[in-house]
C-alpha cells in the first residue's frame, strides 16, 4: 500500500494515524494483499457473485406506520442536543 493511498483512506474514514500506526496498517494491508494472491488461482470467470449465502428472495413488509420511540428516549445518550435536535458544530454548505 502506498503512503498516498493511506492518506486518502484516513481522510475518507475520518481517522488520523500516528507514524507507528501507519506502519502497522501498511504491513497489515500488505499481508492481506499477499493473501489475495491465493484468489487469483481460483477461476471465477463464469461464476456469479454471492452476496447472500442463503437463497432467500424478496423480503418485504407492509406499509404500516408504528412509532414507538420518542426523541427524548433516542437522545438519552447523545453528546449534545438542543430543543429535540442533535447538535454538531456549524456546517457550512
Amino acid at each position, binding site marked *: 500500500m502506498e503512503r498516498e493511498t493511506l492518506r*486518502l483512506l484516513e*481522510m*475518507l474514514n*475520518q481517522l488520523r494515524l500516528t507514524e507507528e500506526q501507519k506502519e502497522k496498517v501498511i504491513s497489515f494491508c500488505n499481508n492481506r494483499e499477499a493473501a489475495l494472491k491465493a484468489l487469483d488461482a481460483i477461476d471465477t470467470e463464469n461464476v456469479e*457473485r454471492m*452476496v*447472500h449465502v442463503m437463497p*432467500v*428472495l*424478496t*423480503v*418485504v*413488509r*407492509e*406499509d*404500516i*406506520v*408504528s*412509532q*414507538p*420511540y*420518542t*426523541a427524548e428516549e*433516542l*437522545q438519552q445518550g447523545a453528546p449534545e442536543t*438542543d*430543543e*429535540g*435536535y*442533535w*447538535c*454538531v*458544530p*456549524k*456546517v*457550512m*454548505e
Partner: protein
Amino acid sequence: MKYETVIGLEVHVELATKSKIFCSCSAHSFGAEPNSHVCPACCGMPGMLPVVNKRVVDYGMKAGMMLNCHINRTTTFDKKSYYYPDLPAAYQTTQWFAPVAVNGTVEIETSGGKKSVRIKQIHMEEDAGKLVHDIREDTTHVDFNRTSVPLIEIVSQPDLSGAEEVEAYLERLKTLLRYAKVAECEMAHGTMRCDVNLSVRPEGSNVLGVRTEMKNMNSIEAIKRAIEYEVSRHIDAIENGTEVLVQETRRWDDIKGKSYAMRTKETAGDYRYFPDPNVMPIVIDDEWFDSIKATLPELPEVKKARYTGEYGLSDYDADQLTKSIAVCECFEDAYSVCGNAKDAANWMISEVMSLLNVKKMTYDMLDLNGITLGELIVLVSGGKVGRANAKKILAAIFDDPSIVPEEYAKANGFIVSNDTGLIATVVKETVAADPKSVADFKGGKEKALMALFGKCMKQLKGNCDPQVLRKILIDHINGL
C-alpha cells in the same frame, strides 16, 4: 458564435408512502416536531435491520412504467458511504448495480414541437435528514424525521437544451407521477428536488463542454433562473476567459441570483458502493408486475381526447378536468351516476374546483366522492332540488363524505315542492305587495319579472321548479 446548452437532470421525488423505506416510522415529516418520526434504525443506532417497504417497490415500478422504462425483474440495494451530519449511519442505502427501472422516455411539448427525453434510470433510495442552521450561530441542528423517507431518483440523459425544455420536462414528470398517485411532487414541500447538470458548447459541436452540477433550487422558476445564469457564466468563460470552468458542484443562491462552487474535500464523490448484505434481492414476478401494470392510469392526453370525443366536452372543459387525476376520477364517477357529461363537467369546474380554490386546496387534494356528487346532480336535473340549495348540499358533502344528498336535502327542507297551490298563494301575495314591478313588467320591462320571480323563489326557500313558478307567475300577472 452561437452556443447550445446540454442539460441532464437528476430529479429526486419523495414517494407518497405511509411509512419509511426500511423502518416503520411515519414518512410524513413535513412540518412535524424535530425527531418525532425517528427510531433507532433511522437515527443510526446499531442493531435494527432494514426490511423493505413493499409499497416503495410498487411505486418505484409504477413510476418506471409511467416513464416507459424497462423494469429490472431482479432489483437490489447497495450501500453508499460518506460522512455528513444528515446521514446518521454514514451510509445511504440506494440502488447502484441493479436499479428498479432503466432506459425510459418522457415525451414533452416544446415551442419547437414534441420531443422525447431519454431516461437513464430510476432508482429507489432513502432520503437524508435535515440540517437547521439558523437556531444558533455556532451550531447546526440535526433532524432525522426525513431520514429514510423513500425517494426515487430519476436520472435523465443530457437531452434537454434549455430552461424551457427543463420546465416542460419537470411539469410532465409531475403530471405523470401525480396521475400514477406515487408522489406529491411539490417543490415547495421538498417532495420534488432537482439537480441540474449543465454544459455549453458551440452549436453543431459534438464535443461536450465542461459540466457543472447545480443544487439547491426550490422552485421551477428558480431552476430556470439558475440555468440562465449558469449558461451565461459558461459562455462568458468560453468567450471572454472570465474564469476557467471546472467540473464541480455549485450551489444556487436564488436571492443573490448567483451560483457558487461548493467547498468539497479531496475525497468527495468517493462513495465506496457495495451490495447491502442485509437486503435480499427483490424479484418482481409476473404476478407482481401485472398487478402494478393494471393500476396504471390513463394518460392525461388520452383522457382529454376521450372527454372531447366520446363525452362531447369542449377543449376548455377537458383541459380543466384533466389538470388533476383526482378531479378526473371525481368527474368520471359523477358522470357514471348522472349520465350527463356536460352537467358533470359544469359541476366539477364551476362548483367543485372553485370550492377547492376558496379552501386554498390543490386539485390533487380533492377527496370528494364522485358517486355522491352524481347523486346530487341527479337531484338537480330531476328538479328535486334547486340549484342554490344544491350548492349548500355540495358544501356539506365536501366536508363530510358520509352525507347522502337526498337525505340531507329532506332533513334540511331542500326538496322542491310541487304544491302548485302553495306556489299560487306565494305568487298572489308577492304580486299584490309589489304593484310597481307588475306595472313595469306590463310596460315592457322584462327585468321586473325577474325581480318578482326572485322574491317568490325566496319566499319558497328555493324549493320550487323554476319553470313551474315562472308559468304560474306569468299566468297570474296576465290574468290581473
